[in-house]
């Protein structure tokens, strides 16, 4: 058994569990976007950051992947954590102002769209990769994939065509947190 604290509360867990899992088990809320119980954590959205002090130094880590260790002190809402989350929500809100889940977060973090907000896009994909991971890990198909990289990175099927590997099960639709898959689905799903 590993014992450590989250926001001062003493909690326990086993080797290999993550901070997020233990926090949720104890009803401590940490916001997430790219986390889904059915697939392996990926660490793309960084919304679940927490500050971990291991006695030597304090650093910001993502709770969905950070394995718990004895004696660490976890803070889920320190100023550093808040700054990272605020910016992530700000950046996401400017990318896709219409997505309900993002609006919810924006409200919680009191963030409003900035002058850089994207015009004409309501439901932008945030490349959280849930659809791709679900397609691969849950369904066992690899119809969807990331294409390109960096700012050009996108979720699509090879050659932007309807994938012949797709089985049209809709799992990608089910796990998509922003609704962007609804637009993409008819373009990439099996003919």
């Amino acid at each position: 058994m590993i014992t450590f604290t989250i926001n001062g509360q003493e909690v326990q867990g086993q080797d290999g569990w993550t901070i997020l899992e233990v926090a949720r088990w104890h009803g401590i809320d940490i916001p997430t976007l790219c986390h889904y119980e059915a697939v392996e954590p990926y660490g793309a959205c960084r919304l679940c950051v927490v500050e971990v002090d291991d006695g030597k130094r304090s650093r910001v880590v993502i709770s969905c992947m950070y394995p718990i260790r004895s004696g660490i002190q976890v803070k889920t809402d320190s100023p550093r954590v808040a700054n990272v989350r605020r910016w992530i929500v700000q950046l996401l809100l400017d990318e896709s102002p219409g997505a309900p889940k993002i609006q919810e977060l924006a409200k919680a973090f009191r963030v409003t769209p900035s002058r850089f907000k994207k015009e004409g896009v309501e439901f932008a994909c945030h490349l959280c990769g849930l659809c791709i991971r679900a397609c691969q890990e849950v369904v066992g198909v690899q119809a969807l994939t990331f294409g390109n990289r960096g700012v050009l990175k996108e979720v699509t099927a090879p050659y932007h065509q309807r994938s012949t590997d797709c089985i049209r099960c809709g799992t990608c639709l089910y796990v998509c947190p922003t609704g962007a898959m609804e637009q993409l689905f008819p373009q990439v799903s099996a003919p």
Partner: protein
Amino acid sequence: MSVTFKALENILEHYPPSSEHLISALQDVQAKFNYLPPEAMTAVCDHLGVPLSRGWAVATFYKAFSLEPKGEHDVAVCLGTACHVRGAANVYEKFRRDLGIAGPEGTTRDLKFSLRQVRCLGCCSMAPVAQVDEEIHGNLSQRKAGHLLRMYRKR
């Protein structure tokens, strides 16, 4: 260079069917055909037992791969730091203007030239530099860039 079964087989027979060889095999295909023809991509993926989506992801992630046929001459302009502080951006613009390429990178309509950016060719002492096919040309200016294109156009 047509994509033939034989040409592909010559490449693929070097690789046991394991996904770790994907990048190397695609590099060979790229070297052979100057781009990754879709049929070659399928063949490589089938051979190595990886889904097409993986092949496509790799091909679009790495800059070394091109999914479009490349031109006869490959013009790679270095935009590394040393070249940048010595005015490489203007030189690059010159190439783009002269070749009439709309996007940041591309191939001319007549498939004569492909223009692309690279980050450091490791020839910082001769900055700004550009590599045309295998040859490196250093200490470029806009004027020299124009000469360079005229020279290769004649070849």
